[in-house]
């Protein structure tokens, strides 16, 4: 990699990642503060929620078989890590990853970017490392906020659960970050790269929902990276290890493919 390039890419991302992280931290702490109230009225909430259709739970990443308010993990999963957190973090990761190559080409800055005596692979790898640093910052600040929320509002969260959550969130974002840089390596416009990955995410999301609702369509879950995203099990310290591995394999594989594509493509700014 090239350190000047890594630092520049981190500098370019720093404000964006800061605001995303701050927003998620505030949201997590706010939601955690509701936990004691909801815990006191658990049975009433459970009764109300049982009236909702299963589809509604699936849309927000909640397995209706699991009781929502039996644990802090279940509550935070339903309210944050099941839908809001991944949706928000994915916007950051997809937009930042899609910018890696395509934005340099689109804005015409690729001519200076590529004029330096560093191989294309190292240049893009430097940007991927900066994106990884952004992902880690986002995940770690959220994890710290969750730990603080649990401590302050009486939630049960073990260090094992927190560690597994960090692994789950990081590997999940790496998977889509890798795909976003791969799309960017092909594209000459950031919006096209981001749009392509957003489309893939939407299809995976729909496949995952349908797979949860219909026994005949259960095979669809193998087409979706959402299937391997299980923050609730992670917070409970019961994460199946193959799940983050699937995400890491996809993410790292896509990132390596992006290096190959970028090394071979023509650049016409």
């Amino acid at each position, binding site marked *: 990699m090239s350190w*000047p390039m890594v630092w520049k890419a981190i500098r370019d991302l720093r404000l964006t990642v800061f605001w995303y992280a701050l927003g998620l931290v505030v949201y997590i702490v706010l939601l955690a503060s509701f936990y004691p109230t909801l815990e006191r009225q658990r049975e009433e909430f459970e009764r109300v929620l049982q009236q909702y259709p299963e589809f509604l739970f699936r849309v927000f990443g909640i397995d209706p078989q699991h009781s929502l308010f039996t644990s802090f993990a279940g509550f935070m999963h339903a309210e944050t890590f099941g839908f809001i957190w991944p949706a928000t973090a994915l916007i950051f990761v997809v937009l930042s990853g899609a910018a890696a190559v395509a934005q340099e080409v689109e804005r*015409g800055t690729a001519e200076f970017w*590529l004029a330096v*005596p560093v191989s294309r692979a190292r240049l893009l790898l430097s940007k991927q490392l900066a994106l990884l640093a952004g992902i880690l910052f986002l995940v770690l600040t959220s994890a710290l906020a969750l730990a603080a929320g649990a401590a302050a509002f009486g939630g049960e969260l073990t260090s094992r659960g927190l560690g597994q959550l960090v692994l789950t969130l990081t590997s999940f974002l790496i998977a889509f970050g890798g795909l976003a840089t791969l799309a960017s390596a092909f594209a000459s416009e950031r919006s096209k790269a981001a749009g392509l990955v957003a489309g893939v995410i939407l299809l995976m999301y729909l496949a995952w929902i349908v797979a949860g609702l219909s026994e005949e369509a259960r095979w669809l879950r193998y087409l979706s990276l959402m299937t391997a995203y299980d923050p609730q099990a992670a917070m409970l310290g019961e994460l199946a290890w193959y799940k983050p591995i699937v995400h890491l394999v996809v993410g790292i594989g896509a990132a390596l493919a992006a290096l190959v594509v970028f090394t071979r493509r*023509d650049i*016409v700014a």
Partner: protein
Amino acid sequence: MSGVPPIAVERLTRSYGTQRGVIDLTFTVEPGEIFGFLGPNGAGKTTTIRVLMGFLRPTSGSARVFGLDCWSESTRVKERVGYVPGDVRIWENMTGKQFLEFMGAFRASVSPERREMLLERFQVELDKRIKQLSRGNRQKLALVQAFLHDPPLLVLDEPTSGLDPLMQHEFLTFLLEEKDRGKTIFLSSHQLPEVERVADRVGIIREGRLVAVLTREELKQRRTRPMEVVFAEPVDPTRFADVPGVRVLAVENGGTRFRLGVQDNLPALLRRLAELPIVDLTYAPPDLESIFLTYYQAERPERQEAAS
């Protein structure tokens, strides 16, 4: 690297699908020379430069810089090259200072004395963000970064665009000084006067093909300067037939307005004009079209002969 030409392009073709890029280019740039690469917009100058810089892969043929393949060894090529793109777009959130520091960070050595000299010479604004800079000031930043690490070869794509006339003059003077220091310069331009001023040899490209490679003297012999003359009363065009180096390009307003193509023999023309009822005269700098015209005229009789 001694004996290896700074640039060697052989039968280079680069096409964009059905669109033309460059076709079958062959030329060599010798050490220590300024090689002008002259052609109208869209002729293929930037495509050639992008192949040299390793941004584009040749469709066929080869491009080498100091003997290194421009595609497969582009990283090593860039160690030896200072580059100014044709359309200068810099990261807008950086300041000028940050940009120069960033570009310099990839280079083995940047002499503080050289940096100071370049900044002073080109009067670069360092503290403003790039997005606040005028086009000319961005261009000056691009020029400074290209020369900063003192590379043996400069590849400059329309480097004077956006510069004011004084700075253009200063830059061309600087190019001649760099040449005297042994630097090789590949200068792409569509401005005939600036190429004519500094280049030792000139490659002329048109519609993707290299039309000719000429020395500066050969270029001067081939080009003409356009002159527009207005007379008080109609003048017979044959009055210019016996003036050497003058061609009548057009006669307008019933024979009172003439457009002439003038080579270097100005005294003979002025003597003839003094005999005529002249009211006004405009003498423009040489233009690129006049060179192409000489090639069309050379080609036309050949074609006619071949047809008959």
